[in-house]
């Protein structure tokens, strides 16, 4: 459904070239019609969709640091696959791109300092030097990777650290909170960290926190043979970024109170909500959902709810762009009409976030040892998703319902570790709308010249 929608919008952009190079802003309320005479709670969704990139179009050069765990746990197939994946990444990049490769164990070694990929041979040679040894200085590895990015840092490039780890961080800061703080600081510089957790030994909370606080992707790769594919997807994403430094500001008008933002970090200061995204991918929708409380209104009254403003750096035109939208709500005293007017796609998106929140709470119960409670919570969540999927005609909700059901079943099984990692991966995927990208594969040598 969503894909179809995206397809249609992209078609629309193709027809109107003047708009084609702009991010599409779609702000909508879950219930554009509210019941009069009572205080209502509803959701506001601000969706941003990256414009399409065509095959003959020059893409934005990337500045990427591959930070690869080479602790002893990576021995054998894992390190071999990591080498393959890194080689693939280098092959996908072009002469205008910058790559650096950082390997860490007890300490950190910069295998390839940040360098333009005019000659791939030395880089590919350096990848061969990846051999497992020692502990896991994850924090230092990421720090060094980020520092390599800074050497060629440009807001007109895609700046990304790609972290691959299969183990616990055991040298340096190692708590999810600390790594989250690092991610939060990096994203303010315009650096996102995508994390790939390999196998069952890594700390998923840490890897997920680092990724989500820095607005990067997080992937769980259970089997190393899938590593190359994961890298491929990640680079598909990196190479399809069309906008950066996205700031969404929502000013709510009197009579409307923002309660919370679901699934993303945001500042709620009185009537103003501000949230940021580091990047938008081509033909991929990212959205922010705010739960709001609307004071009671009279029948047929139309009330302005919020002014939405989005600013971002357009990587196609290399200019700052600004989009605005206004949102209003009407009131009706007829419950059925109110119900019928509900915006199904928006509702589906909101339900997905709420269900994700439920899923997180269930996981917390499991972490505290309340297995039965967690099982029940997941089961209830599955039921909620199932009914909502039917109501809002959403396959995404249906899928997530199945996921919750199988998680509920697996919660007391021996491979809880894998399940937990999968749960976290899905939570981030839902909260930050990861993995719905176009998957468009770019020809290697088709890129924009940097200025």
């Amino acid at each position: 459904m969503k894909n179809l929608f995206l397809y249609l919008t992209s078609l629309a952009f193709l027809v109107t070239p003047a708009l084609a190079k702009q991010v599409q802003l779609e702000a909508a309320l879950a219930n554009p019609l509210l019941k009069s005479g009572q205080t209502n709670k509803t959701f506001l969704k601000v969706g941003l969709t990256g414009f399409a990139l065509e095959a003959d179009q020059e893409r934005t050069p990337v500045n990427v640091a591959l930070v690869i765990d080479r602790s002893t746990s990576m021995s054998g197939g894992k390190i071999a696959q990591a080498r393959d994946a890194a080689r693939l990444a280098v092959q996908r990049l072009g002469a205008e791109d910058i790559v650096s490769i950082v390997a860490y164990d007890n300490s950190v070694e910069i295998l390839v300092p940040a360098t333009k990929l005019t000659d791939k041979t030395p880089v590919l040679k350096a990848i061969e030097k990846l051999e497992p040894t020692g502990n896991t200085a994850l924090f230092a590895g990421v720090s060094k990777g980020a520092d390599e990015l800074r050497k060629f840092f440009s807001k007109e490039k895609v700046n990304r650290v790609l972290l691959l780890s299969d183990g616990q961080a055991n040298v340096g800061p190692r708590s999810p909170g600390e790594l989250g703080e690092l991610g939060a600081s990096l994203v303010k510089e315009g650096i996102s960290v995508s994390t790939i957790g390999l196998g069952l030994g890594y700390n998923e909370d840490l890897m997920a926190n680092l990724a989500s606080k820095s607005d990067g992707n997080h992937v769980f790769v259970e089997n190393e043979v899938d590593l190359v594919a994961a890298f491929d997807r990640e680079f598909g994403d990196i190479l399809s970024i069309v906008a950066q430094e996205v700031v969404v500001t929502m000013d709510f008008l009197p009579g409307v109170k923002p309660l919370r933002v679901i699934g993303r970090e945001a500042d709620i200061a009185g009537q103003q909500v501000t949230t940021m995204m580091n990047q938008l991918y081509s033909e991929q929708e990212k959205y922010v959902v705010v739960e709001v409380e609307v004071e009671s209104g009279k029948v047929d009254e139309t009330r302005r709810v919020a002014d939405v403003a989005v600013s971002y750096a357009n990587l196609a035109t290399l200019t700052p762009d600004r989009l605005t939208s206004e949102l209003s709500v009407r009131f009706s005293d007829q419950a059925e009409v109110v119900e019928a007017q509900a915006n199904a796609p928006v509702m589906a998106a909101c339900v997905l976030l709420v269900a994700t929140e439920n899923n997180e709470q269930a996981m917390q119960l499991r972490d505290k040892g309340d297995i039965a409670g967690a099982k029940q919570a997941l089961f209830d969540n599955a039921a909620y998703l199932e009914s909502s999927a039917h109501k809002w005609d959403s396959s995404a909700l249906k899928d997530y319902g199945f996921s919750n059901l199988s998680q509920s079943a697996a919660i007391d099984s021996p491979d809880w570790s894998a399940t937990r990692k999968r749960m976290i991966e899905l939570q981030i995927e839902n909260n930050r709308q990861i993995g719905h990208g176009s998957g468009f594969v770019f020809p290697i040598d088709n890129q924009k010249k940097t200025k």
Partner: protein
Amino acid sequence: MKHRYLVVFLLLTLVPAGLIVWLGWRVSAEEQHRTRREFIAVIDESLQTHRQIIEDRLADRFTDLLQVVETARLADTAGRRELARTHPWVRQCFEIGPRGRIVFPSRSQLTEAEQNFLMRTATIWQERQPFRLVDEYGSRADSGWHTWYWSDGPHYILWLWHPATDHVYGIEVERMRLVSEVLAALPTEGQPHVSIPSEAQIQLRDPSGRVVYRWGRAAVEADASPITSIALNAPLTSWTLSYYTGRIITTRQFSSQTLINTLAILLGTLALLSGLAIYFYRSMTTQMRDAAQRVTFVNQVSHELKTPLTNIRMYAELLERSLDPDDERRRKHLDVIVGESQRLSRLIGNVLTFSKSKQGKLSIHPQTGCIDETICRLIEPFRQKVGADFSIEQQLDAQDDCQFDSDVLEQILTNLLSNVEKYAISGDYLSVSSSLSDGLCEIRVTDRGPGVPTSKQELIFQPFERLSDKLSEAAGTGIGLSIARSLARLHGGDLSYLATDSGSCFKLTLRVSP
């Protein structure tokens, strides 16, 4: 005798060897200490270099950050929030009023991040004056760092005092960014310009002692203690850079090397000293054996000489008796024969006594007799020898019979008189006195010859010592006085030289029994 040589031998080898060992040990210990000090100095410099690298890297950032605080001071609420949202180093801005009142973030309208900030910093606001506005020199500082602990580690605030309003403005620094920046400044593996020895490692540790970063490929045990460490500068004053070495350069290694050296020196010295000692010991024993053989030989020869000499004397005396009293010329010839043979037998007697004394076989055989008689018996031939011009005084007062060895006395006196004859004949004077009291007989022999210089007065009693080896000097074996003294001492007395104005005076004492 053998035993004594062994002791000397051991002393000669062991004492110097021990001394060398001790000195060697001291020197090597000192050397080791010095090497270690130099080593630590080099390491210290290396650590300071790295601290400087960190400081250089942070200095610009901190200057920027003070500018950011200034910007935050001038900004409104939205501007301050924007700063915290977009500046990679800024987690939160704040403003404090005169009496520690929090002006921003305002409690009336807090974002979630601001609520968290107030929770994190709650302990700070409990203090009356949260930031130390007085620096270490006592003057009021207008900016500074503040570190506090919350949850899982240290957090850092950079503050600025604005005198005009008396407000303090500040930012909470993104602490992980700060740490990340420090790590980014530090070397990675395989960077040639900052390489440290492969057996070393430098670790950066946070205030809880946790290793945050390290480089250097040495295998360092978790509980190993560093060679040396230094603290970082503000605000990271509780952070340390520590230098570790792996298992290769350890003190054990140092001392085993030293031990081997010392042992080698010790063994070499011992071998050398033993060689020397054995050489000397052997040559000494050879000499001793030779000397003993010589003494035995002289002894035998002397014995062999004694018999014919006695015969010569006896027959000369017989001949003298049967001589015509008027035949002066022949009598004179015979006197020479008798006198010379007496001299010869005295010399032989001396040699035999000397060799006996060296062999420890000398003994006395006291018999009842008169001391004065013995003296007179000896003076008579002396008088005849020296002639009428030589005046001889006698003050003899030991007429009483007593027990003494007349042979010994005779030998001593003969030697003394012989000396007068040889060296003091020019004085033309001899005085001999004797006395006897309380079982001690004292005899003085005085002449007016050239005497003995004060410095040589003891030397003359040493065997083979003679005052002059000039050929013109009188002949002599050089053992006379030595033998005389040995005999006197054997007899319970002594022989000593008394200083006089002119000439010599020998005082002889003998222990006698009535």
